[in-house]
């Protein structure tokens, strides 16, 4: 797993503001610390649709044969 740049308080504050939510400096720092461990490269194949891999997995309930 390759490391990605972690979240910074400034980036968090901007992203939150674009989501319609204002955070102060302390909150932005806390959020950056909380989410950074989850920010990793997931190494998904390029130029494929999200659900094109087989088996389609967690979304298998959406396959036509599983629907009435």
């Amino acid at each position, binding site marked *: *797993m390759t490391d990605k740049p972690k*979240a910074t308080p400034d*980036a*968090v504050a901007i*992203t*939150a503001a674009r*989501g*319609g*939510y204002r*955070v102060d400096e302390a*909150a932005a720092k*806390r*959020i*950056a*610390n*909380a*989410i950074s*461990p*989850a*920010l*990793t490269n*997931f*190494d*998904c*194949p390029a130029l494929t649709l*999200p*659900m094109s*891999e*087989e*088996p*389609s*997995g*967690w*979304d*298998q*309930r*959406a396959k036509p044969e*599983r*629907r*009435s």
Partner: protein
Amino acid sequence: MSSQQASDPALWTLTEAQAALSRKRISSLELTKACLARIERIAPKLNSFLSIDREDAFKAARAADRARARGDKRPLLGVPLAHKDMFARKGKTMSRGGRQSFAPDDQDATAIARLSAAGALHLGPLHMNEFAFGPTGHNEHDGPARNAWDVTRITGGSSSGSATSVAARLVFGALGSDTGGSVRMPAHFCGVTGLKTSYGRVSRAGAMPLSFTLDTIGPLTRTAEDAAQIFSVIAGFDPRDATTSTSAVPKPSAAKAPVAGLTVGLPDAFYTENLDATVARAVEEMVAALKSLKIKVKRVTLPDQARVNAACQVVIGAESTAIHKPMLIGSPEKYGDQVRNRLENGFGYTAVEYIEAMRFRAVALSQHLAATAGCAAILAPTCPTVAPTIEETDVRGGGNAEVVIQQITRFTRAANLLGLPALTIPSGFSDSGLPAGLQFVGAPYTEDALLAIGAAVQRVTGHHLRVPPVE
């Protein structure tokens, strides 16, 4: 059945209660009175019931007895249950574990409606973590739920009231929800059986959402056989929930299927790390029990579980925040500190990060299924330790809350990200009498195999029969 269990019907399993009712050895009214007497005596010590629907329960019990006298043979006719307070019930307010009451819905949640149609009674709403967003059973508004084995210990969450009520023999079964471990975690800490269903197996219509591509609903019961009874009633396609599958639903008899010759995989890393002595011993003893049942046990190497957990954190973070955004912006004071802070975290993820985590799910499942090929299930701890104290895990909105929560749930989140079913069963006790539960995790839509393995194990072990000393 012990002599104490024979004398107090509330101590029966759901399956035993069903048999006694169908043979007319007991009426539903008598069974309901036995449960309510126990609830009134014990529930306040556990903070497990938010309220008790005493009169409604008596009315429904009498109706069940009249129906049985007319020849009604519905599977759960007259069996008292209670559920986490996140399922809509027509005309009844619901707290969802929050500070305020939410207005009544105009119809029951599908899972509740199916249980009612099968004849079950509902004794009252149960404690839960605020908005099901926490793994410990703390609740800043309602106070913590307390573990029936030791009331200074956590129940686990978020189906806290469900687990401790079933453990204390207050009801024969309870619904919970599992988005990151919320059925299995409290099942582990409270010594009961908990079934996390495959994604799409049980309708979420009328149930409070937390993370719409991770949420699942499942039963907490005393035995795997009991879980099969409830599962067979609530599962199946529902036009009110477009994510539900039309695949066939296993019958309760699935729990009695033969298991000899099956293979169970034992992960060689990640799920072996930092286990306390009780959990480590439970794994060893479970392997011996499986072998005694002629189930083969083989080592498996799973894909990087840390990355699977990371993806789950991104998905639940982004989805829960999107669901709560209007209330979070409009009425932030209605949240406890921990849940508000965790919901705020979701604003930090970008759209690309969320989509990458979502795309990774299919890749990760493909890798998982390849690594576990030939296995009916994998065996793993549900949590590395037995229940810690309420005090030591009371992190509230502290800066380390997310880290603590991610650590507690690191063995359960993979099944949610990958949509897999998982069954936690009582698997051992610490020297001080605290339970430990191990989970069997299967491929999508293989609840039948998990229930068969769980029931077979419970025929050769006695952990599920122990009753907590909470009187």
